[in-house]
């Protein structure tokens, strides 16, 4: 492997702990498992590693119905059966019905690719166990054609998880692990700066204050996260709302403008309105 180093890109702010973990994974060619609150840029990380290191990116989005085998290859028996009924010539070669999955494609790349396995916790509880050997040795065996597929270059595998299911120890032992924690105010300033370089300074600091106050409110079903903040700022910019409108002093007295971008849940908006109401009554 090479002396590649990832240090964030022009549109992704990576903290030192994150880059250290990523570089360890890149150097040894081992998978890296990324966890964190929704909206903290887990999925985007893989795209940015690929961009930062100038490598092709392959994506495998896992759903509750995804099987580990589908990442390697699938044998399309139904198509073959149909072809046999119609007397197609292709039917004599089984290789015609092997459909390559994203992992196989990653193994075949001529340069070391980045492979994203997104939301691995959505799949069945046995899913990670079925990938142990593939992730360890970076090879697998195709039973139908009796061939062993070996990776030309060990891909940089980025795995994301939302912690819906626990992952088995044997799987975890083969990965590096990083938990993206919610960025502090300074990192958040960097992040916003990367996305909206022209943003007026005061508007930004007022908006950030409003945002962190909102996150402090107990009992919110879904706390607004980084991606929601960025959306909200986009709206504020588009509507050209002055900073003064945000600085009402106490956030608990009024809803911030365009709050729909931050609070995604009817109950949360109700809760918030109720808090405002209570607060006004207390102040009277």
């Amino acid at each position, binding site marked *: 492997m090479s002396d590649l180093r990832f240090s964030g890109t022009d549109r992704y702010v990576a903290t030192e702990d994150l880059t*250290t*973990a990523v570089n*360890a994974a890149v150097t040894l060619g081992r998978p890296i498992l990324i966890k964190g609150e929704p909206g903290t840029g887990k999925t985007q990380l893989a795209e940015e590693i690929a961009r930062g290191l100038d490598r092709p990116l392959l994506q495998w989005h896992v759903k509750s119905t995804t099987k580990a085998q589908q990442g390697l290859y699938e044998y399309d028996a139904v198509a073959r059966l149909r072809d046999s009924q119609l007397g197609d010539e292709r039917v004599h070669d089984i290789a015609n019905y092997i459909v390559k999955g994203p992992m196989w494609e990653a193994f075949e790349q001529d340069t070391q690719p980045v492979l994203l396995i997104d939301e691995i916790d959505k799949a069945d*509880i046995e899913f990670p166990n079925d990938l142990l050997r593939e992730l360890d040795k970076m090879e697998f065996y195709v039973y139908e054609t009796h061939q062993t597929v070996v990776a030309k270059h060990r891909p940089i595998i980025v795995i994301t998880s939302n912690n819906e299911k626990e*992952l*088995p120890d044997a799987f*975890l*032992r083969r990965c590096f*692990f990083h938990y993206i924690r919610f960025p502090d105010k300074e990192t958040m300033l960097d992040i916003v700066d990367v996305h909206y370089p022209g943003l007026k300074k005061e508007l930004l600091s007022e908006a950030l204050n409003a945002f962190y106050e909102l996150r402090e409110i107990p009992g919110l079903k879904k706390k607004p996260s980084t991606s929601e903040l960025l959306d909200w700022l986009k709206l504020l910019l588009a509507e050209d709302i002055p900073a003064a409108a945000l600085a009402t002093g106490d956030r608990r007295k009024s809803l911030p403008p365009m709050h729909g971008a931050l609070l995604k849940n009817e109950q949360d908006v109700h809760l918030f309105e109720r808090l405002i109401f209570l607060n006004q009554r207390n102040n009277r």
Partner: protein
Amino acid sequence: MLLGFFYQLRAGGLKVSITEYLTLLELLQRRVIRFDVEQFYYLSRACLVKDESLYDRFDRVFSAHFKGVEDLFGPDGADIPEDWLRKQVELGLSEEEKAQIEALGGWEKLMETLRQRLEEQKERHQGGSKWIGTGGTSPFGAYGYNPEGVRIGQEGSRQRRAVKVWDKREFRNLDDSLELGTRNMKVALRRLRRFARQGAAEELDLPDTIDCTAKNAGMLDIKMVPERHNATKVLLFLDIGGSMDDHVRVCEELFSAASSEFKHLEYFYFHNCVYEGLWKDNKRRHGVRIPTMDVLHKYPADYKLILVGDATMSPYEIGHPGGSVEHWNEEAGATWMKRLLDTYPKAIWLNPEPEQRWPFTPSIQMLSQLMQQRMYPLTVAGLEQGIRELS
């Protein structure tokens, strides 16, 4: 030196494996990091810890092991500007706590004492009740339990290199929210899966396909069915507080296993025995109560009821009106238990107390009788028996 660290991690309750240790050594050999403790901290954490709830434990071991090393990288600032401390305290304390400080002679007196102690004390200190350090009950230092304490060294700024990242212990909240070993429980809970076919037809129905193809004179006729989903509904009632404190860990394991295994899971808390009120948030147990009657009416009888509690209490709390330790209950706990069991015929009680002790606790006997002997120990084996009863 790293070997000592490795064993210290294992002693600290982190299940670090040999392969992970060797991986870390390989990374160091390949010079992934510069010679920098902070980077080494990040690297070893990514390599050795695989669960954010264990970050805090790792931080503690790291801090203990590399205490000497950090001194090589710069002095640990002993002279702390007063205004910084003041700001820190004002940020970290609630209104009540500030009032408590006032009661103790106020801010000025507190700072005066702190200055004296700082002069008396020459070295780093941990624990204890007088010196400035971490984890103690002295009013000065960090992470202590004294409400009027002064926090030193918890300022969370990236620029302030004197404060070590691992000493910030940002992941403290996450520890104990999840524990290892829930997989066993999940496997046991899987028995309770009852599958129903719902949603889009996307799976091949082989028997039907064969049938229809045969009827179709050999021409293929593919039949699809929706995939099976777990349709089991579970009501989980958890005893909390008091004698249950000893069993918090195993209950958390059960809860985290159950909440990821069942789509329809509703949980409620109670104390010792079920009475007319339940609650969902233990912090607001006295404020927001849900009438048990509402729960009985809201969730239909096809829900399976799992009660978790040690059932260890005074027999009056079950048998008599007004027996509850927390409030005046109009009706006896036994009445409420009967109501629950009448509504939910499929019910079990899981008891974290060891089974050998059951015969010696009258209240366990009473509840077990009320449950018609459907009380099982909260172990993987007991859970399996109980689940068999439920399914």
